[in-house]
């Protein structure tokens, strides 16, 4: 064996730490057929390191060097003269660990090293003491108390007294960072809306914001954006889907090995559920939020570190605490302090059966006992039922004493809003923040105000720091990956995520799909405007065969984008729109949804329902309808349900056209039937679901986050959600650029868009310059400059849509468009 098995990792260790080679050795050991001819070799990380750690380091490292022997590095060990490379028999070290003399033998206390361990030491010495030079025992370089620390805000040093700015201004002064420069209105608006809602500002928003002279307008904008609950949820669901491994299709969903939490998640975001409760509901779940802790049940044999309880252990550690439990799921971690017992301790909480601890996929015979990672916060009583244990864990996780919990989430939010975590990388929360006071200030504020995620976002977004120009990403240029040598200078220029970019393109092109894949919103929440009606209150004893006509008239200025009517009747109905027969229903428990947009016209429209009662003797009769209209240029839906504004008549004229034109016929207001909702209870959820479907199918608000990832989104970095993902790719790769340059998906959207812009140009009689201006304002929140117009105009080509398509492509490909500045 050569040194080749080692690698130059330079890491900061907590207490005694060493790096690992072949961490996956054990993880996947079972797949090695036993007949493999293994050359005898020493795996430092697995064979030697654990012994050094547990048996030697206490007396020979970390400032304690008994017998002048330092085991802090290979060089120091060699310098000590206790080993002769390549010859274990001549080495004092070997002599001492095998000696039977109580005064000589090492370690002096406890059990002797086993024969196998001794053999490993011999082989280690014989193979030249393989030990990467970069690895040294080091002192713990940083630790912070678990509890939150109250932060005394520094004196105000600039014109901003915002708490975040007070801390940052103080930091800037100490680190000689030059002051931030103000950000223009349009870039601030664009940044804030993309960050908080994932969308481009509309032209109206941009203009109104520019015209607004209120000095507090930026703060008000943040409040206004955060109040758009649906848009907020549609944007942040991507962040949470990545974190919680939730998706709409994928491994395990079909065969029940995995469950979605989409509906729960979306609703939790819409209502801005307090984060402590949010996490309690994930850890100690109801059936609708069980998917996260359930994990993914893989069919077939999986490594012991990937069974569902260990997935649980790894995922809650990473997501909620910024702890990497992946190493410790297999063996005591080499990169931090976490032990196999810690990983299994969490796993045991959720395990249905006693869970046998496996080290490197080999059973140890020990059974895991429930254990929380921070004993000072509290412990789990392993004798309780699984449900109770999970409740306990949920309580400990969200306990006020567990400062790691709020720190981890506020750090993730800071990362999202500025491009870099206070603690970085965001999943290594043991690292020092570039500003510990800021981290704790945000965490305390978050906890003190009810674990309010939006409050923290607001806190960040309203600071002058966030309202300033982005900076050259100094951390990126230096390639520094640790917190300690990073200097914060301001918000980074960031790249749009796949979903942000796709949403932006859909906005510019109208190419959003008609349907979404996420099952979101609960139908029970849909409030219907319609009521059950009939001609009179005696509907409960309506004569058999009674036929009543109901009518609803309404005027529209322009054709709606979509329109449907959901109808049901006891016993039977025929539906006509503007005289045309559209639908028929014969079962009140099965409401019928009809797309009526093709029948509608500008001006007056008439809905006519011929409703009839059946049977041999008097029996209940009732009609219910909900008319849905989505107007042309906004996402609002107008609904007109059956109520007293509908008319009824009885007539022997059966032809609907004739009936409607008949001037002699008297129409009377329909009568709302109290209590009918109970009578027809089973039909109501179906009506609600139909209304909701209409709502969700909104082509204006259909968001990329709510549809399955297509190949373009995947290419742009939307992840496969089998693993927890906490960051997205920061730069555009060549393969991505290829997909954007000639890929069919984007090209298709741009074609759709070009045709729409062309008809808009013709309709509004825009000059080419006006079209370019309109597009720039929508896409970039600014008009084109004169030399840009010079490049772009005139728009000419053989096919009139072609130049517009190219124009769209150029704008969408501008760094200015794809970057959040």
């Amino acid at each position, binding site marked *: 064996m050569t040194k080749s098995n080692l690698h130059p990792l330079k890491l900061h260790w907590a207490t005694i730490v060493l790096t690992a080679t072949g961490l996956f050795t054990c993880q996947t050991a079972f797949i090695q057929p036993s007949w493999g001819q293994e050359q005898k070799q020493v795996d430092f990380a697995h064979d030697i390191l654990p012994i050094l750690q547990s048996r030697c380091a206490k007396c020979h490292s970390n400032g304690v060097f008994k017998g002048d022997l330092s085991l802090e590095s290979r060089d120091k060990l060699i310098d000590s003269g206790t080993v002769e490379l390549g010859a274990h028999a001549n080495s004092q070290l070997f002599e001492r660990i095998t000696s039977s003399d109580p005064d000589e033998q090492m370690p002096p206390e406890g059990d002797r090293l086993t024969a196998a361990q001794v053999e490993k030491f011999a082989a280690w010495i014989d193979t030249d003491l393989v030990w990467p030079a970069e690895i040294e025992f080091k002192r713990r370089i940083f630790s912070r108390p678990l509890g939150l620390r109250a932060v005394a805000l520094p004196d105000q040093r600039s014109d901003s007294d915002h708490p975040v700015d007070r801390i940052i201004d103080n930091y800037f002064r100490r680190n000689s960072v030059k002051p931030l420069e103000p950000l223009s209105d349009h870039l601030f608006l664009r940044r804030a809306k993309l960050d908080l809602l994932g969308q481009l500002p509309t032209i109206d928003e941009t203009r109104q914001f520019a015209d607004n002279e209120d000095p507090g307008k930026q703060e008000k904008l943040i409040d206004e954006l955060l109040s758009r609950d649906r848009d907020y949820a549609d944007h942040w669901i991507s962040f949470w889907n990545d974190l919680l491994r939730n998706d709409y*299709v994928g491994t395990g969903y079909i065969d029940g090995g995995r469950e979605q939490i989409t509906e729960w998640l979306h609703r939790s975001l819409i209502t801005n559920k307090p984060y402590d409760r949010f996490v309690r509901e994930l850890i100690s779940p109801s059936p609708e939020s069980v998917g996260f802790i359930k994990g993914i049940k893989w069919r077939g*044999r999986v490594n012991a570190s*990937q069974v569902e309880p260990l997935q649980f252990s790894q995922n809650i550690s990473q997501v909620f605490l910024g702890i990497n439990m992946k190493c410790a799921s297999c063996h005591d971690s080499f990169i931090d302090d976490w032990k196999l017992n810690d990983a299994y301790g969490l796993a045991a909480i959720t395990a249905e059966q006693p869970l046998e601890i496996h080290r490197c996929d080999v059973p140890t015979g020990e059974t895991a006992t429930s254990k929380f990672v921070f004993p000072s916060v509290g412990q789990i009583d392993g004798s309780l039922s699984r449900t109770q244990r999970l409740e306990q864990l949920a309580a400990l996780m969200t306990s006020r004493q567990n400062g790691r919990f709020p720190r981890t989430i506020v750090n993730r939010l800071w990362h999202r809003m500025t491009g870099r975590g206070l603690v970085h990388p965001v999943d290594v929360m043991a690292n020092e923040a570039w500003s510990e006071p800021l981290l704790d200030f945000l965490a305390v504020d978050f906890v003190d105000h009810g674990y309010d995620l939006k409050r923290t976002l607001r806190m960040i977004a309203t600071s002058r720091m966030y309202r300033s120009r982005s900076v050259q990403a100094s951390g990126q240029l230096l390639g520094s990956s640790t917190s300690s040598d990073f200097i914060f200078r301001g918000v980074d220029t960031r790249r749009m995520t796949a979903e942000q970019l796709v949403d932006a393109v859909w906005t510019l092109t109208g190419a959003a799909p008609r349907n979404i894949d996420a099952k979101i919103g609960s139908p029970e929440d849909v409030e219907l405007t319609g009521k059950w009606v009939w001609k009179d209150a005696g509907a409960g004893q309506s004569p058999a065969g009674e036929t009543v006509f109901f009518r609803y008239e309404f005027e529209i200025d322009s054709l709606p984008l979509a329109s449907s009517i959901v109808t049901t009747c006891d016993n039977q109905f025929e539906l006509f729109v503007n005289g045309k027969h559209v639908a028929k229903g014969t079962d009140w428990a099965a409401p019928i949804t009809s797309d009526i947009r093709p029948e509608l016209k500008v001006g007056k429209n008439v809905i006519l329902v011929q409703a009839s009662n059946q049977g041999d003797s008097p029996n209940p009769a009732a009609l219910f309808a909900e008319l849905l209209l989505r107007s042309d240029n906004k996402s609002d839906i107008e609904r007109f349900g059956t109520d007293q504004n509908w008319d009824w008549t009885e007539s022997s004229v059966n032809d609907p056209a004739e009936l409607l034109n008949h001037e002699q016929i008297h129409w009377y207001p329909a009568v709302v039937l109290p209590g009918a909702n109970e009578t027809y209870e089973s039909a109501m959820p179906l009506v609600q679901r139909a209304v909701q479907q209409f709502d969700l199918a909104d082509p204006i608000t259909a968001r990329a986050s709510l549809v399955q990832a297509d190949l373009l989104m995947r290419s742009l970095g939307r992840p496969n959600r089998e693993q927890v993902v906490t960051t997205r790719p920061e730069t555009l790769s060549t393969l991505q650029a290829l997909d954007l340059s000639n890929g069919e998906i984007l090209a298709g959207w741009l074609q759709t868009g070009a045709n729409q812009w062309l008809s808009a140009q013709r309709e509004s009689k825009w000059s080419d310059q006006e079209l370019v201006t309109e597009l720039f304002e929508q896409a970039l929140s600014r008009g084109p400059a004169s030399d840009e117009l010079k490049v772009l105009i005139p728009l000419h080509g053989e096919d009139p849509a072609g130049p517009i398509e190219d124009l769209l492509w150029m704008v969408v490909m501008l*760094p200015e468009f794809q970057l959040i500045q």
Partner: protein
Amino acid sequence: MNIQTKIEARRDFLKMTSAAALAALATGAPRLIRADDTKPDAPAATADTCILLWMAGGMAAPDTFDPKRYEPFEKGLAAEKIISTFPEIDTVVDNIKITQGLEQIARILDRGTLIRSHVQADLGNILHSRHQYHWHTGYVPPQTVAAPHIGAWMAKLLGPRNPAIPAFIDIGQRLEGVGEKEELKAFHTAGFLGSEFGPFVLPYPDQAIESVRPPKGMTPKRFEARFRMYRELVNQQHGDDASDYQKESMMRSMENAYRLLSSPERTAFDLTLEPKASYDRYNTSRFGQGCLLARRLTEAGARFIEVTTEYVPFVSWDTHENGHTTAAQMKKDVDQPIAQLILDLEQRGLLDRTLVVIASEFSRDMMIEGVPGSTARDQSRAKADIMAEMKQYGLHRHFTGGSSVLMFGGGIGKGVLYGKTAAERPCLAIEKPVTITDLHATIFRAMGIRPDSGLDVEKRPFYVTQDGKGKPVGELFG
């Protein structure tokens, strides 16, 4: 292209990608543990290009490259008597027999090595996508990080051979509209290496050119004008507050893409430019066309190419019933184009530096699911102890105890037979077993990559072969 220009081209590409690499450093993204080609102890590459011809769905060794006792179909035949459903045939190498239907390959076996002792892990339950994930990444799923395809490793560690040709090209597998598509996507990826190193996916070889030319309906002139205007706009820098770093990195990728889409090399993707006689020799199937495309791309300077017969559940090599008939058809599809590919590479002087590997996720057997003693559920759809109809005749169970791999070129031995399986059931590898890990180590070694090359991801090392423990099988090199 001579060596010198190759190096220069490589350097250009590296220059272009350096900003992306810098960015990767920033985010706690993977860092290279060992840049092999800069180390004195890196193995000398014996191949510049690797072509993997993937027999998707589990190619039965006894019905292809490892003939056993043959029992022709007849009613009343006991299933347990059947090991091979094809008779053996001679090959150009004296001591090597393969099965009927592979006559073209039989004639070129003197150019390569036949391994009969490739073994796979028993994953408890046979799922093609899991075994394929294992074979393509070297790691058994699930993993706590997304493991890269071996082609992505080569793209990452070696870069493209010609900057105008994507380093990792993946031919023949649709990733949409087929069963288990999400599972397939999980390993047709660069994983944590990042999309820069991911596969350039060409599901339909005869439409490959579409992927490297201007969008449909756009003339080259218009495409060029579009990019020229775009560049002008970008250079005017209006309303542009973005950091130079971000902007430059983005423009670099856009320029790279544009160059690929307007480069002369892209004609390599166009099968219609192949002389008809040659095209016809390959045109047995989509796979055959894929082999032709692979040859053209190898000539143009590709680094890693996979061509697959395509995995679709229960189709092609995935024979759960009617196995004999289906295998006969599959052999028709693959025999001629594989042989032609080897001959063409040889004729062009490329075979010596091109490693061609023909492999599958596991073998098949008439009786045994997995390996003896495995708990895997029997997945045959035509179970029969006694043959009653033709559809019962075939190797319908997934066998992981011994399969065949063919290797040609790139420094691999010629006319060599390596390893052996038992003559009688269970036909386990009984001599010189080669695991996926060691097979990968051999492939990487041929490409000049040490099997313990790796990256630091999430502070943990992740190696090109499982745990960095793969050992090249030295005897396979000629």
